[in-house]
């Protein structure tokens, strides 16, 4: 497994340099046609978390415009994202890499409290 380290920290609206906690909470997210597992995660405002994204089948996307996230999840690789959301809200993340007939419904929810 080849880790694709994408150490990015975002606040809502604009990315900024990582001032991540040394040991942020790690959340594993698996993509598989046509959904993400888990399909909802809850983050705390101001909390630094690391998302570790993998695919069980084909290449998927992980796209969330308000957080400026636009990543590929390639089978056999791990894509890592570090986030520190600064605004509360409920956000829908979609797969934006066409992956088959039900691609249009492949999404998950990120709740920031």
């Amino acid at each position, binding site marked *: 497994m080849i880790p694709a380290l994408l150490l990015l920290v975002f606040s809502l609206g604009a990315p900024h340099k990582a001032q991540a906690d040394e040991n942020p909470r790690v959340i594993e997210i698996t993509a598989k046609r046509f959904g993400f597992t888990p399909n909802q995660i809850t983050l705390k405002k101001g909390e630094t978390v690391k998302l570790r994204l993998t695919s069980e089948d084909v290449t998927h996307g992980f*796209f969330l415009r308000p957080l400026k996230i636009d990543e590929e999840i390639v089978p056999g690789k791990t894509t890592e994202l570090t986030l520190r959301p600064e605004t509360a809200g409920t956000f829908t993340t979609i797969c934006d890499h066409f992956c088959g007939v039900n691609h249009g419904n492949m999404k998950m929810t990120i709740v920031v409290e």
Partner: protein
Amino acid sequence: MQRSDRRSFLKMAGTSLGIGVLYTAVPAAAASGEIGEMFDFTGKKNGERVTPFTFVQLSDAHVGFNGPPDPLGTKAFERAVEMINQLPQQPDLVLFTGDLTHDSEEKDVHAQRMKQFLEISRRMKVPKIMYVPGEHDAGLDGGTLYREFLGESNYSFDHRGVHFIALDNVSRAKPEVGPEQIAWLKKDLARFPKSAPIVVFTHRPLFDLRPEWEWFTSDGDEVMDVLSPYENVTVLYGHIHRDHEQEQGHVHHYAARSLIFAFPDPENAPEKKPIPFDKDHPFKNLGIRMVHEKVGARPLLNSVAVEDVELTVREFSGINGVQQILKNPSL
């Protein structure tokens, strides 16, 4: 000639009828006596005089789709073809803005769907039919099958003084045009004056219409940076299975309805789910715009009787390239 005159040399009108979109481009200033001067101007600049013509936009037939909510398969598409063939004034060309077919992971099945699509499409008695792919045509194989049947997925051509540009924002699997195509677009447009009438046709919206519904093109801003210096640009697209109009500076964007099922207004719908099928009105929301235009006269509605089709009349006429500006409430 004043700047405003150069920008208002075409007139466009449309009427919502049921399936597809029909555009007519005619000289807006025909009655003003200025048209000869404007045509001389555009003729010199573009190499061809703009002359009145009609074209049709169709979108999102999804041939091969057989799931809910639409049990009718290709019937709406076939009805659209019949309607176009019955028009009193035959259009010069048809632009098909993607999702011609529904995808299949079995290449043979997808190829059969493409053949079926083309068999229906080629029933249209129209001299020229031009296509761009949707993600359901080209997303899984990078457009290989599409190109086998229909050739390149981005290109341009001139028709009666209007420059048409086919942009592919699906074949890279993600909703993007890509740097190579943007470089090509810059080069393609370089020979035109800023007043040239330009029609871009593509599948996805080139702006953030609803990103969480995948109604966007990620590098659409870069495309718009190339297009925005031009004063007469119309972008026609599909993908969203519903009407939508948006203005961005000089650029006007119009979405066509689909030929399979409709999506709801995202402003009022909690999630992206097709509008349920209505067996009493099987083609409801699979709309059309149609125009009958005479140079120098106000737009007239063609009477097209279409059994079972919800008839909603909506006429537009206006100026600025092939753009819709003025509604005509009397129709």
